[in-house]
């Protein structure tokens, strides 16, 4: 083997604390290293060309690059060595930036440690073997989980691109959070006017199958060939027959249920269609409140339904959808404002969330678009908005910024002034975060044109005084305590991961952060990919996003899916486990522990043996550490490779 070692300066990122030339020179003492050099930016075009040229000139058969983390540039360099004619697995990286130069300033120790990391990379490379991927077919259907604006965008883009799309929505209608909004910033155009047509497009698109009121039950398979079991929850209404006429809603005797679509500030019937533009516009029965279910008798809706669509005996149904890719667009939920008792939520009805305020503003909301406070239906004059409720607050384990609250609060002050010209809005804020096109101008308009009074400071408490609420807080700019008498208090509740997100992540075999937001593959370079091939992210499930960002991600995820499906055959990752059939004793321990059911028992000359299903194996190597005789080995991370690394580090 002829190994070349390339030690990257990364400008001064590495060279600043590592003597890269010394490392390169010293690696020449390592076995089979015939060429070593330091290079300014290994990943740059000249850097890569240098590697390719060296492979050709020095007849290198393996390459080690000591630079940044392989999680960043391993694919880059693998492609480079491949361009030079080597198998892409005849390449190893030593991470001397994130793991060395950036975490300490001692040049001697760093140089020495870098050399050690190259040493183990060389020892591993010496035991690498070329791996060649095999090909398998792709099922060109995509599942989008979540029918908010991000999911809708992804579904439409995929469908327009010619793909078959399965859209799964937990609620009985798509639309998500955006459907609940009155107007959108910074243009103040009507939310349902811009979302509605897209929802209709979903309903009418021949390539889109919509499973509303449904949830993902389990996911099997792998990129190109997932099998997703979808639980269609019982609606007790045959949607084939339901025309959405609304007769049942009119007659339903159970009318006082909190309306989830209206954020529980208005009532609804037990059989319901959430809002007039719902897609699908089909009724469903909430069995927890319906008299037929609760008391065992009623049956009014069944009697009035002109098409006879009511089915009280309906049960949940599981349908299996075979798809080649999945986009998770499950959105977010709101921080529970009751967790901050000082603000009086739950105690005082006139302390509401921003989203509830949206419903009060909306013409299709419970008040018909007239701002009436929940307690007595009076029109409020003094309205206090409190920012960062459940955002940027370490004490609540919500240290992150929810991103869009500053903007919607500004929008709401503007809309308030439009609705009630003699009103006064006050906004308690920490910082105003408005880094978008026309965003900062928008917040300025709220203050300057619409007279919203912005007070920089936190609110200490809200307490009642007569039918008013007293809001006591600090004005940190003035350095004074302020107290404002409010008719209505609107809390900008922060965004948090959608309920059930971690469970879904586990089904999808993707990671999520400690708050339940899904982890993207790379925070900058792979924002909509995940570490599980064929699973993509769109919208707020990855972290709080406003509408344009969500739509952008929906399209981005769709582009990824379209790119994935542009090939008829996918290449399987050859970095999988392989069985040495001579040494396998057929005990089946690997089969028992494989999380992917990627190993099966076969019979070979009358003896039981294990066999790896190439396309299913994900390359975790649990089998390798389970097999007592080491007969199943994970390629590229074989026992001998790891042992060689261990030995290299243990040698004195």
């Amino acid at each position: 083997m002829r190994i070349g070692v390339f030690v990257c300066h990364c400008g001064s990122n590495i060279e600043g604390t590592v003597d890269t030339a010394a490392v390169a020179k010293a690696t020449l003492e390592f076995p089979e290293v015939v060429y070593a050099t330091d290079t300014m930016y290994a990943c740059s075009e000249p850097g890569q060309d240098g590697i390719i040229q060296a492979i050709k000139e020095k007849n290198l058969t393996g390459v080690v690059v000591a630079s940044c983390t392989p999680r960043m540039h391993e694919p880059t360099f693998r492609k480079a060595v491949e361009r030079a004619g080597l198998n892409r697995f005849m390449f190893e990286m030593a991470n001397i930036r994130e793991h060395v130069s950036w975490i300490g300033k001692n040049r001697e120790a760093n140089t020495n440690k870098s050399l050690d990391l190259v040493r183990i990379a060389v020892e591993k490379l010496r035991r690498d073997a070329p791996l060649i991927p095999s090909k398998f077919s792709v099922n060109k259907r995509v599942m989008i989980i979540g029918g908010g604006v991000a999911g809708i965008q992804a579904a439409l883009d995929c469908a327009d691109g010619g793909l078959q799309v399965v859209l799964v929505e937990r609620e009985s209608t798509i639309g998500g959070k955006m459907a609940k909004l009155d107007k959108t910033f910074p243009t103040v155009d009507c939310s349902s006017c811009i979302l509605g047509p897209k929802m209709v497009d979903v309903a009418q698109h021949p390539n889109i199958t919509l499973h509303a009121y449904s949830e993902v039950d389990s996911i099997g398979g792998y990129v190109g060939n997932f099998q997703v079991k979808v639980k269609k929850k019982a609606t007790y209404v045959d949607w084939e027959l339901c025309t959405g006429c609304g007769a049942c809603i009119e007659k339903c005797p159970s009318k006082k249920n909190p309306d989830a679509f209206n954020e529980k500030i208005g009532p609804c019937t037990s059989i319901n269609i959430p809002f007039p533009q719902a897609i699908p516009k089909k009724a469903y029965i909430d069995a927890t409140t319906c008299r037929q279910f609760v008391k065992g008798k009623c049956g009014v809706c069944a009697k009035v339904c002109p098409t006879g669509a009511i089915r009280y005996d309906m049960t949940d149904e599981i349908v299996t959808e075979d798809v080649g890719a999945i986009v998770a667009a499950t959105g977010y939920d709101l921080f529970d404002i009751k967790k901050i008792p000082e603000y009086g939520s739950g105690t005082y009805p006139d302390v509401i969330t921003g989203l509830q305020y949206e419903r009060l503003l909306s013409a299709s909301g419970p008040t018909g678009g007239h701002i009436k406070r929940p307690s007595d239906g009076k029109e409020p004059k003094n309205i206090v908005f409190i920012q960062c409720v459940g955002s940027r607050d370490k004490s609540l384990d919500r240290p992150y910024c929810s991103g869009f609250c500053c903007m919607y609060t500004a929008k709401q002050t503007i809309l308030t002034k439009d609705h009630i010209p003699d009103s006064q809005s006050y906004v308690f804020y920490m910082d105003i975060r408005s880094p978008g096109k026309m965003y900062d101008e928008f917040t300025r308009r709220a203050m300057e044109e619409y007279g919203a009074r912005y007070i920089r400071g936190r609110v200490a408490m809200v307490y009642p005084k007569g039918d008013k609420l007293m809001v006591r807080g600090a004005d940190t700019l003035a350095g004074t305590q302020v107290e404002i008498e409010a008719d209505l208090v609107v809390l900008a509740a922060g965004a948090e991961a959608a309920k059930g997100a971690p469970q879904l992540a586990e089904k999808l075999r993707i990671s999520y952060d400690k708050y339940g937001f899904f982890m993207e593959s790379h925070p900058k370079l792979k924002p909509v990919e995940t570490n599980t091939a064929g699973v993509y992210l769109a919208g707020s499930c990855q972290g709080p996003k406003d509408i344009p960002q969500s739509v952008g991600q929906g399209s981005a995820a769709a582009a990824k899916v379209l790119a994935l499906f542009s090939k008829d055959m996918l290449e399987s990752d050859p970095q999988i486990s392989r069985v040495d059939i001579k040494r396998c004793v057929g005990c089946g321990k690997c089969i028992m522990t494989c999380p992917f059911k990627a190993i099966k028992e076969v019979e070979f000359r009358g003896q039981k043996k294990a066999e790896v299903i190439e396309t299913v194996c994900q390359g975790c190597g649990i089998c390798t550490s389970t097999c007592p005789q080491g007969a199943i080995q994970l390629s590229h991370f074989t026992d001998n490779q790891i042992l060689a690394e261990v030995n290299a580090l243990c040698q004195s």
Partner: protein
Amino acid sequence: MPVLTGKELRIVGFLCNWCSYGGADTAGVGRFNQPTDLRIIRVPCSGRIDPLFIAKTLINGADGVLVSGCHPRDCHYAEGNFYARRRLEVLKRFLPILGIDPGRFDYTWVSASEGQRWQKVVTAFTEQIHTLGPAPRFDAVAPELLAKVAGAISQGGNRVAA
């Protein structure tokens, strides 16, 4: 010279690619200062780590071994760290009977986002190993200690007969 004599001890880390290796990267990106003793071996999953690798590393002269994987329930491969947790815990409890200080091995969970946590783990573990000092070696047991133990064995008998 693998470690800087007198300054560093030989600490080997086995990190899963998806979480902890990423966490160490995150720590690097955040420029979170760490001791330089640790050498990281990247593996796909903590489930790939045969406890025997750790035993081998310690018996062959490493002063400490640190394993880190994804937090339970957060394994990229769904279940790898669940198996790892059992196996590593069994190993950890096994080491002292061999005569290896259990403090020389530890395992933990660090996610890709937990750069600061990684810094804390590395710093604490490195300190712990420095407190324990260079590991004694099976092939270099001090003659006096050997004589003492041998004496006790020949007196008490190899196996204690009732």
